[in-house]
């Protein structure tokens, strides 16, 4: 194997992996705190991509500049979905009436609903949102590197650090961590658990909102685009460790690197199968994921 190609594959694997990790951050947070597999995670990403698209089409706003608009919008949407759709189920679950699987099914329903509403509203045509940033790629030594991907990967690192600091040093962050550890004990300590849930879900969606705007300049936008990212995010989160912020990035980079390198030796569909094999293998050895704490 040509060392140039192999080094390039490494570089690319890290960039794509970090991007996947950034997209999975919100899912990891929701997963860790609410113990809910948010099946609609990819759909929220799709909505963020369309938000960037429409803001550009109607208002001429660059996808990078649409972050401050899309993030609060997505926060509000996530907050409402948790409050109106999932909240009632959790309240019943506290009374030990509902199995956690129903939350998964509920979010799957939200996913189908959002995807089909998007299809009705936006049509099936593939769209794109080019950024006014004209430097599409630059040379890193001998390697042409896509600057949009570098921005997305760097943003994923910044977001992960930001969320980690916020969880560690703010009241709401502490409340979220306490709720993640033991929701009943947190409630007895005076923490408003339903509010924590709403904020966490909103924050998870806001994170995916930010990443959506940042990947919009290079990802084709269709109503189905969320599904691929949703499944990848799920793998990344479980691999990295449920609820672990750093784990999300590590999981993403492991998958990104593995797929990028394996694809140089075998056909891409085979590489994807191998990456799922790696996923199973790691979970067999570390059921809590790479960065998750053993319980």
């Amino acid at each position, binding site marked *: 194997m040509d060392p140039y190609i192999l080094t390039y594959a490494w570089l690319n694997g890290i960039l794509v992996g970090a991007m*996947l990790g950034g997209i999975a951050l919100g899912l990891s947070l929701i997963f860790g705190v609410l113990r809910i597999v948010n099946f609609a995670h990819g759909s929220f990403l799709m909505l963020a991509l369309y938000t960037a698209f429409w803001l550009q089409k109607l208002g001429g706003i660059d996808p990078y500049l649409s972050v401050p608009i899309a993030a609060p919008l997505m926060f509000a949407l996530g907050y409402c979905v948790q409050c109106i759709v999932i909240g009632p189920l959790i309240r019943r679950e506290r009374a030990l009436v509902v199995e956690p699987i129903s939350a998964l099914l509920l979010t799957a329903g939200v996913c189908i609903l959002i995807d089909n509403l998007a299809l009705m509203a936006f*049509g099936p*045509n593939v769209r*794109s949102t080019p950024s006014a940033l004209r430097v599409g*790629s630059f040379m890193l030594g001998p390697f042409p590197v896509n600057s949009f991907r570098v921005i997305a990967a760097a943003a994923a690192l910044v977001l992960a650090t930001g969320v980690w600091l916020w969880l560690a040093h703010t009241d709401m962050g502490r409340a979220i961590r306490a709720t993640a550890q033991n929701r009943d004990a947190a409630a007895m300590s005076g923490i408003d658990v339903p509010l924590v849930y709403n904020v966490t879900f909103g924050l998870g969606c806001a994170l995916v909102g930010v990443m959506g705007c940042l990947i919009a300049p290079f990802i*084709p936008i269709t109503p*189905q685009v969320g599904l691929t990212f949703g499944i990848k995010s799920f793998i990344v989160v479980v691999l990295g460790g449920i609820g672990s912020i750093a784990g999300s990035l590590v999981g993403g980079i492991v998958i990104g690197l593995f797929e*990028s390198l394996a694809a*140089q030796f075998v056909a891409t*569909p085979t590489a994807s199968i191998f990456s799922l094999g790696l996923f199973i293998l790691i979970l067999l050895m570390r059921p809590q994921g790479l960065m998750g704490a053993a319980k």
Partner: protein
Amino acid sequence: MTPDSKRRATLRTIVAAGSMLLVVSGNAGAQAIVKIGCVLPLSGGSAALGNQTRVGVMAAVEQINAAGGIKAMGGAKLQALFGDSQSKADVGVSETERLIQRENVAVLCGAFNSAVTFPATELAERNKTPWVVVGAVKDEITERGFRYVFRINNKATYDAREQLDAMALLAKETGKSVQRLALFYESGDWGRSHAANIRKLAAERKIGIILDEPAPPNQVDFTSQLLKIRSAKPDALILALYTPDHLLFTRQLAEQRLDLTFGVHSAGGGAEDPSFYAAIDASMTAYYFVQEDWQVDILDTNQDPLLLDADRRARALLGYGMSASVALGLAATYVIGDALERAGSAERDKLRDAIAATDLSSGPALFTGYQRIKFDSAGQNTFAHGVVSENLGGKRRAIWPSENRAADTRPVWPVPAWARR
């Protein structure tokens, strides 16, 4: 006759008259509308192309109805009923079942994706319902000895042959030929079947295949595959990808400034989809070669009012004009309309025989760019052919066959390197 028997006789007369009236009106109802079922991917990965076909079918139905309907059936009107396959084989089959059993359609068309068309046509065959294939190219669709399945458009073998024929024509004109080919294709029925045909034909023509790579659908990154192509150093790349993947791949290829001496040759798919061109910077698709069942610059030479009407409808409904999928939807419906005229009946068996006897050499069914539509014993239109275009100066121009090439079209071969564009 007693008053009682008289009353019974009157009652019998009324019942008989009533039943006759019902029979007559029933027949009149059956004649008034002919239902055409069309299974298409209206959502899912190929939804854009499915919706284009839908526009073509609707345009033809409305044109035929506006022109007085099916005259041999007393002016019967056509009605198109659509089933959404979501690009999934199982959904396509259940939609076919619904259209045959519940909607009782006279004839079916669709289903764009080969993977859907293959099992769905089997169901149509079992139910003795004629099916006019639209878009699907997998060879075996018309190679199973079926009686009710007909295909107007190219089969995969033709697509592959035409791509290599176009390369051979350009080589003949310039003296520069492709020696090393790379294949990159979606891993479904269409892509695999296309690649298999290219492999077979390339071997016959002594062209080396130096990279042969399937791609899972809906990728988020193609860098790894582009790296493989870069390290294989092919002369030309043959692509068979659906629109979203095609868009991502094209962008990344342009960003990486990957030079291919004889360019990118796409077999329809994303590169024939107008929404693809709307979503991408024109510089990224410069010198793209696209093989498709549609002469993309036909409106420059053909100003038929029905073609212009279909183009106008497409613009109103889709935001862009005619495309291969619109043209094929239109063609299929006109073939069905013609068969209904000759059969004088919407009865499935009669209609099947009429479709089998189709021989069209003029009219809107040929808007795709064909010279004739006539099916062989397997149901394949042997006169189908695609047109290969090259994107020159921001405009897609037909370059193959040479008869379809405009006088002012000068193909660029080899294509300039990125640094010199």
